[in-house]
């Protein structure tokens, strides 16, 4: 019987975001179906729904023609659906065989677990795939690729009919990718349904039969890998109506001297990154997740150790050993993860605004409360932060208002911020507030601040930045001006195979 997994009109909303909107398609056994789309297109949400991690608001999933309901991941596993995520879900200090059979270890007559039988069973599976792995080896000692293989065998041992991969090749070398593809072809030959999520277009053409293109939560195109081209695929992923969100922004038109210059910056993650940001200029950093964008921010903010190259702020070379150093030199960072890295969630709006400059608000050693109140009220007024009181904890504010608290902090008059790094400032923020934040960023530029703007959303980077630097694999893959940048150009720079 042909195995199938069908999605019918799947819909899912998060606060402020329509993650999936009436998505329908059918994956068939004996074929590899690739799921592609930009960051935020809805791929991960779809995987989470099929693995029982999240529940769809609308629509249904049919497994081999029968409707199924996965209230939790266990139900999905029991039904034979396995999703292999990027972060491997193995127990590193247990052996390969124990990881392959975590929930049905064979037992002896005495009820103790039968190591010999387990070894034989695991060896059988490993041989099926022709891998050189010892079942008794500790999983933590295997390299990343083999760990992934163990994960696949774990799914196989459970007799999973549906196996989905989330960006499986991201941590692998070329040779390891070959092994993975052999394995996927074996699964395919056995008639299993394989769903493959990846950013790398070349791979998709190599392994996939069908391609589903998602964009902003909608299915925009169903393609056959044999009948399409990379160019068509990129067009399908990108082509959207940008609307007039960006046209109405009041921008800064005049740039001053070079405020930030990075020469050949090298860290553990970066290999010779160079660029400049002038006063009043917005420079966008584009690239895929893991391409080194955030790492540039971390190096510039004194978090990651700089092993080579130079950082020049306002004409002077600086050494940044800690965020405190960076702040002293007028650099500010709005980090990627608001809740984990930006705010102390259980503390008040007041506390969160003054965090980087408490010392300057102190008379002798005591915090000057009335001055604090004035400074915080300034920020609230300037950014129209909606809150009943500055004593409210930031956990009680909406995502957009939380982001404004961080912006208010760094642009307070207490700090003389000259370089502002924004890492994904609009992540998880509703459309209306996004518009406000875009204008705010333009206003920073007007005040002469040099802005480094990192975002995964291509339209945002392209339309807001005066010039765009595309990162790929820890390097600068190319730079484009706003006039010449298109999503196609940025994507092809971001996705080109590292040489």
């Amino acid at each position, binding site marked *: 019987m042909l195995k199938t997994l069908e999605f019918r009109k799947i819909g899912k909303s998060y606060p402020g975001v329509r993650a999936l909107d009436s998505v329908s398609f059918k994956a068939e056994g004996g074929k590899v179906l690739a799921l592609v789309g930009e960051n935020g297109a809805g791929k991960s949400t779809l995987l989470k729904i099929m693995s029982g991690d999240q529940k769809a608001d609308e629509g249904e999933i049919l497994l081999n023609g029968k409707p199924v309901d996965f209230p939790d991941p266990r139900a999905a596993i029991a039904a034979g659906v396995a999703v292999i995520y990027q972060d491997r879900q193995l127990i590193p200090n247990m052996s390969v065989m124990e990881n392959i059979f975590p929930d049905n270890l064979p037992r002896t007559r005495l009820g103790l677990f039968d190591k010999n039988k387990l070894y034989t069973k695991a060896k059988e599976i490993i041989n099926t795939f022709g891998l050189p792995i010892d079942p008794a080896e500790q999983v933590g000692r295997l390299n990343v690729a083999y760990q992934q293989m163990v994960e696949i065998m774990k799914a196989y041992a459970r007799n999973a009919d549906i196996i989905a991969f989330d960006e499986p090749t991201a941590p692998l070398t070329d040779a390891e990718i070959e092994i993975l593809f052999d394995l996927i072809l074996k699964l395919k030959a056995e008639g299993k349904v394989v769903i493959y999520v990846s950013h790398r277009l070349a791979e998709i053409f190599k392994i996939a039969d069908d391609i589903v293109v998602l964009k902003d939560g909608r299915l925009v195109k169903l393609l056959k890998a044999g009948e399409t081209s990379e160019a068509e695929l990129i067009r399908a992923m990108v082509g959207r109506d940008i609307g007039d969100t960006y046209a109405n922004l009041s921008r800064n038109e005049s740039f001053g001297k070079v405020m930030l210059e990075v020469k050949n910056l090298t860290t553990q993650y970066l290999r010779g990154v160079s660029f400049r940001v002038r006063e009043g200029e917005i420079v966008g950093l584009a690239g895929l997740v893991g391409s080194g964008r955030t790492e540039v921010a971390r190096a510039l903010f004194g978090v990651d150790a700089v092993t080579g190259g130079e950082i020049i702020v306002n004409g002077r070379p600086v050494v940044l050993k800690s965020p405190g150093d960076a702040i002293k030199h007028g650099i500010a960072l709005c980090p990627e993860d608001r809740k984990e890295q930006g705010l102390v969630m259980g*503390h008040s709006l007041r506390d969160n605004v003054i965090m980087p400059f408490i010392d300057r608000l*102190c008379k002798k050693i005591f915090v000057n409360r009335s001055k604090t109140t004035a400074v915080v009220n300034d920020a609230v007024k300037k950014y129209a932060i909606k809150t009943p009181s500055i004593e409210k*904890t930031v*956990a009680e504010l909406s995502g957009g208002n939380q982001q404004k608290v961080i912006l208010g902090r760094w642009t307070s008059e207490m700090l003389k911020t000259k370089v502002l790094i924004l890492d994904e400032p609009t992540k998880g923020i509703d459309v209306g507030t996004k518009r406000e934040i875009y204008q705010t960023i333009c206003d920073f530029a007007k005040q002469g601040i040099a802005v480094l703007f990192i975002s995964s959303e291509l339209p945002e980077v392209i339309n807001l930045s005066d010039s765009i630097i595309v990162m790929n694999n820890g390097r600068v893959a190319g730079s484009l001006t706003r006039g010449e940048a298109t999503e196609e150009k940025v994507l092809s720079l971001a996705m080109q195979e590292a040489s």
Partner: protein
Amino acid sequence: MEKTNIYKKYFSSLVHHKVFTLFLLFIVMVGVFTIWSALRGSSFLRFAIFRNILNSLVVTSFLAIGAGFLLVGGNIDLSQAAVGAFGGIILAAAVGKWGLPWYAGIMAALALCGCLGAINALLITKFRIPFFIATLAMTLMAQGLMYLISSIGNNGIAANINFQDAALKYIGTGMIGPIPLGIIIMLLFFIVYGVILAKTGFGMKVKFIGGNAIAAGLAGINAAMITYILFVNSAVLSGVAGIFTAARLGQGSLMALQTNQFTGITAAVLGGISFGGGTGGMAGVFVGLLILNTFQIGMGAVGVNPFWVQVFTGALLLVALTADFVTQARSRKAQAA
């Protein structure tokens, strides 16, 4: 009209304050013990008993202040009692064996305790050893050093060290009017530390690193340095507790503070400092300690078997912790929504 509104406003903010709730609990506890002991024909509500309760707080209050500060900053020090006992032996050896004046003995004890705290901090901030392991190891090391020092000049046999010193005797047992000197010093410490935590920039930074060390670090706060200060402070205050114990007994005892390994942390948690760090104040710690000791002394006064008292003390801590976890879970839910 206007007046009742203001009254309402202040009253409601007071009711929402953890310290107020704790103080109510204390009052209720006193009430229960008063009635209970009246039924047994004795009286609980007496000045002498309250003076006893406060006097019993003196030694542990220093542990509680150190533990409270650390806990607000998101860390725990299990080595407090051992470091304190070590400090007591140093003082006793300095005064009783080496003939140093009392103030030199105190300085030596505090300085050496501070060094042990600095080692704790170094292990935790520089080598990233979990506080649990680092301070547990320090407990063993401090105990070992204590035995070693007490055995010097005693044929290698570890023993308590007796000393006679008028100044130390006064520090341990002296009175100012009807109030023991120790109680006054304790209250002074609570006030000074309370003001530091609530009103100074340093205190705010402690709360920030306890609330979210990553975010605080990314806002330019030197979390490692603050953690350093807190561990040294905890060790020095443990030394103060050890000095008081020795001064009261006239002896550096190898068994000093032995039952107090968790007293500081217990009081801090009872006093409303959440295990997640970031919140709480010294007033809470004081009331937490007050409840702890009133509970224990009250139970003794009404004749409950001391072994049962210990069981009930454990139960009290459990209730406080459960309440803390419930409120934390609630605020997490609010954050997720």
